[in-house]
């Protein structure tokens, strides 16, 4: 895929320091519309801190993040979600006491009308069909009416990912979607993400440790080590980069 043209997300020299520790140390990259970008790197290389800085969970020490040319640095997660940014979390984050179907509806209902209008909306907020479609896509039909908190880890992980896509976000940041997922399901997950990317057309940024998964999913990969971008480019080029190899083997 060509990386020319107007960037959709532009991360410019973002830094986040905790005292003397530089968790993210001047990271810049850009994401084009509809592109899937992978972020790899050893544990503790600052990937999740970078995500949280982009997503408003923490305030970066310096640097800028722009979405469609608009400066979104330091915006709250709520403001970002209203601008079409979705995410998944590294740890399980579903609404445990709600059914799977309600989890999915909850993930999109807040983008329909005003708070006052939603009080008088139908109970499914007009999202029932959309939820059923997502349930079918993720093959969750047999558990759709069970409380999400009672399901297995892998199932909750799928729900978590499905929730992020319910409202067709223009940018999704996925933090280790494969972690804890049964290896036999990893390929299925990859296909799901490709399908969602094709059908919904959003840009994805994916943090992942599963190299095979990321190499096959992402046309463009960024490798982070010790808070810095060590290498960037097509997966094959990054994989064969000497510094990257050293960083991984030396760990």
């Amino acid at each position, binding site marked *: 895929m060509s990386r020319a043209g107007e960037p959709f997300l532009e991360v410019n020299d973002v830094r986040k320091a905790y005292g003397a520790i530089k968790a993210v140390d001047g990271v810049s990259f850009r994401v084009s519309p509809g592109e899937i970008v992978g972020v790899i790197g050893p544990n503790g290389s600052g990937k999740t801190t970078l995500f*949280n800085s982009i997503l408003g*969970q*923490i305030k970066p020490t310096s640097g800028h993040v722009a979405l469609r040319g608009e400066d979104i640095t330091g915006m709250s997660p709520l403001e970002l979600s209203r601008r079409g940014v979705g995410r998944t*979390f590294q740890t399980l984050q579903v609404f445990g006491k709600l059914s799977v179907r309600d989890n999915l509806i909850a993930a999109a209902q807040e983008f329909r009308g005003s708070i006052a209008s939603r009080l008088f909306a139908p109970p499914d907020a007009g999202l029932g069909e959309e939820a059923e479609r997502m349930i079918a896509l993720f093959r969750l039909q047999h558990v759709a009416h069970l409380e999400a908190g009672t399901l297995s880890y892998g199932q909750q992980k799928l729900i978590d990912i499905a929730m992020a896509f319910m409202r067709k976000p223009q940018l999704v940041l996925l933090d280790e979607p494969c972690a804890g997922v049964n290896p036999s399901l990893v390929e299925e997950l990859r296909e799901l993400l490709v399908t969602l990317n094709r059908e919904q057309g959003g840009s994805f940024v994916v943090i992942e440790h599963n190299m095979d998964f990321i190499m096959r999913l992402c046309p463009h990969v960024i490798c982070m080590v010790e808070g810095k971008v060590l290498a960037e480019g097509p997966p094959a080029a990054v994989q064969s980069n000497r510094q990257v190899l050293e960083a991984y083997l030396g760990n």
Partner: protein
Amino acid sequence: MGDFVQLIVSGTATGAIYALAALGFTLLWQAAGVINFAQGEFVMLPAFAMLFWIAMGAPLWLAFILSCAMSMLVLGYGFKVAIVDPLIKHGVIPLVIATLGLSIAVKSTIRAGYSAEAHPFASPFPAGQLSIAGINVSFADIGTLLLAGAIVVGLQAFLNRTVTGRAMQAVAQNTEAARVLGIDVRRMVLYVFLINALLAAVAALLITPTYLAKFDMGDSIGQKAFFAAIIGGFNQTRGALLGGVLIGVLENLVGFYISPAYKEGVALVLFLLVILFRPEGLLGKSEERKV
């Protein structure tokens, strides 16, 4: 002017007692993640224990020492083992509810099993007052300030100067890191519970002469302890001291210059002002949200 200084001094003395209860409250929160809604009852029980020993013929000092030991055993060790340990895994809310239930149970036990009356309690300090340049300060206030001050200084020295104290601080600041450093976290947490119980017993000795020993005397001091802790900064032990003294002094001033009827409202108004203008507390540091 004389009035004003007197009000400040006696307010500081009362505030120092609030601070003792608040200090234990803060330590419990930091080290064990416990919000203890029965903190007031932790002060009330030693007061009755002391009355019991005095009725058995013990002098006040002996009654106090015995009550401290009982308090540490029951309200320190017993509280941790019987209530906190089984509940901590359910999260903060069930534990808060359990301490509310405990507060009701303890209060009602004293009321139903012993007495609903207020019982006089001898002051550990001599009656009378000291007059300097037309300002009268009671011996009780001086004694309270000295004893509370000594306890606080001693506790700070213990926390800052001894290996055990530093280990306890490490646990309070970051339990996981402390564990990695090889600190016996369980033991340190137990120490915090014991210290809390001890502080409560001292607060009981100091406050009961004015509050009188009554089954519901803990309501007021428990609330003051919460608010003192938040006003000063929930994550700072020094904050609890500042918050306690501030409440004590302002209560006295409001009671004298505005209306004694609204003395009890001072802590709340201070609390609302603090969360409006300095939500992390006067001495607190703001914490970043954890994901």
